[in-house]
């Protein structure tokens, strides 16, 4: 099976602080992998590197065989991303925002309009299509962020804490959307919420202090450690 994402020996220093230490991962096509770890483990740094938002101190990332740091535009055209809690231009409406992003991603005019309606309905923002985003709550922005990630129907989804800022109902709905949206896609999701990880992904890459501690199927980790929670606690023990 061809790899969708190959992370090859990624190391990242922030002003001398080692955030990621020689991380290597291979994520196969249509696989769903959660990047699990405590706060400050290097999850967001990894996802930012995969999206080409930051440059590595050493190492490389390949998206469907294309090096992100050499052919960035080609590589990230395959991605739908939700990194940290993004903000949107407050003066634009969701329709205008998605229209802007869709056009940048080369979507055709006629298809774009229909797809905008579709994704806004999917994230339950259909009644807010033409309302300026300045009126949106954090949860609504998070839904819109998910909508823009799914807009161009990308083969790979990169999601950083997708349920962050959502109320319990929103969290449940988001997980439901992701379960549906992941079909036929590769999902690489960063989270420290075990419940979210178990519901959305089948495989886990557990990192701590920038180092990969385990990379296996959740079922295998549960068999080995008793539960994913125990695996998490054991492998990240003494990190804080």
């Amino acid at each position, binding site marked *: 099976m061809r790899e969708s994402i190959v992370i090859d020996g990624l190391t990242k220093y922030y002003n001398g602080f080692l955030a990621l230490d020689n991380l290597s991962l291979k994520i196969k096509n249509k696989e769903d992998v959660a990047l699990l770890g405590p706060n400050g483990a290097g999850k967001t740094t990894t996802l930012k590197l995969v999206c080409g938002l930051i440059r590595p101190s050493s190492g490389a990332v390949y998206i469907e065989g294309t090096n992100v740091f050499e052919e960035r535009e080609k590589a990230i055209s395959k991605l739908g991303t939700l990194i*940290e809690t*993004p903000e949107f231009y407050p003066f634009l409406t969701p329709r205008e*925002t998605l229209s802007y992003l869709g056009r940048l991603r080369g979507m055709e005019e006629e298809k774009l309009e229909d797809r905008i309606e579709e994704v806004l309905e999917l994230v339950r923002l259909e009644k807010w299509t033409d309302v300026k985003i300045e009126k949106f709550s954090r949860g609504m922005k998070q839904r819109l962020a998910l909508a823009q990630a799914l807009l161009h129907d990308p083969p790979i989804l990169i999601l950083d804490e997708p349920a962050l800022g959502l109320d319990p109902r929103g969290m449940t709905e988001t997980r439901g959307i992701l379960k549906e949206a992941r079909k036929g896609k590769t999902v690489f999701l960063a989270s420290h919420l075990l419940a979210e990880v178990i519901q959305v992904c089948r495989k886990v890459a557990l990192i701590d202090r920038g180092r990969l501690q385990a990379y296996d199927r959740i079922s295998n980790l549960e068999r080995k450690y008793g539960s994913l929670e125990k695996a998490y606690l054991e492998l990240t023990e003494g990190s804080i």
Partner: protein
Amino acid sequence: MSEFEKFKVVTRYELLKQLRRKRFYGGLGITVLAVLLIIGLYEGLNLPAHMGIPERYINEYGAEIFAMCATSMSSLAVLAAVFFSGDAIAGEFENRTGYVLFPNPVKRSTLVIGKYSACLIATTLILLVGFLISTISVLVLYEEVPIGILGSLAIALALACCIISMAFAFSSALKGSMGATIATLLAYMVIFPIISSSLAQAGYTPWFMPDRAADSMSATYDIPLEEVFGGWMRGGAIPGMVQASEDPFTSFCVLLAYAVVLLMASLWMTNRREMI
């Protein structure tokens, strides 16, 4: 999809953003008010007579002198350009909108140039309104329109390009939008004038300084400035002040050169900047 197509998309939506902001309409209102104020006070207080301009020059260059005063919009060009551009790059990092914008298959240079074009169009719209009011006024009052207005507009636009580039450079380098805006204003309104005045006092012609190049907005009307304004101050004009703005074409080129160099610097810094 070519980068040019993407550039057009970025420009279109960035312009939409600018036109939705209150500051655009604030800038427009201030421009209209300022131009009307200049025109009203010029005529109402009969300023040429109070400025010590000899009668024969008032008769000969009345329309040109009026147009020169009515189109003295360098400050407005600077303010409009700064307020549209200060947050153009820094805002993407500071407000986290870059997390949505940057992970798209578009070069950062295309984003920067698209944003630049949108800022320039917004500034141009404001300047055009100011120049239109000035042109109509001179036509109504003097029944002629000096061709120098076009030269003055060209220099105003070159100044806008220069200031937008400067704001983009600061916006690419600094963390915050406010810092970039203040740094641009300080550079243009405090630092550059200090250097220019010092050079002029030392006997050098600071034709290469952007603030002095901008003064050429008043030198496009073929008015003998030294003679007309020589009596404005005791002992005549400050040495270097009038001479420094004698060559509008050179000034135009100087401003564009600053615009190009600073935009290049902004592109370089934005390309290297990480979305941390």
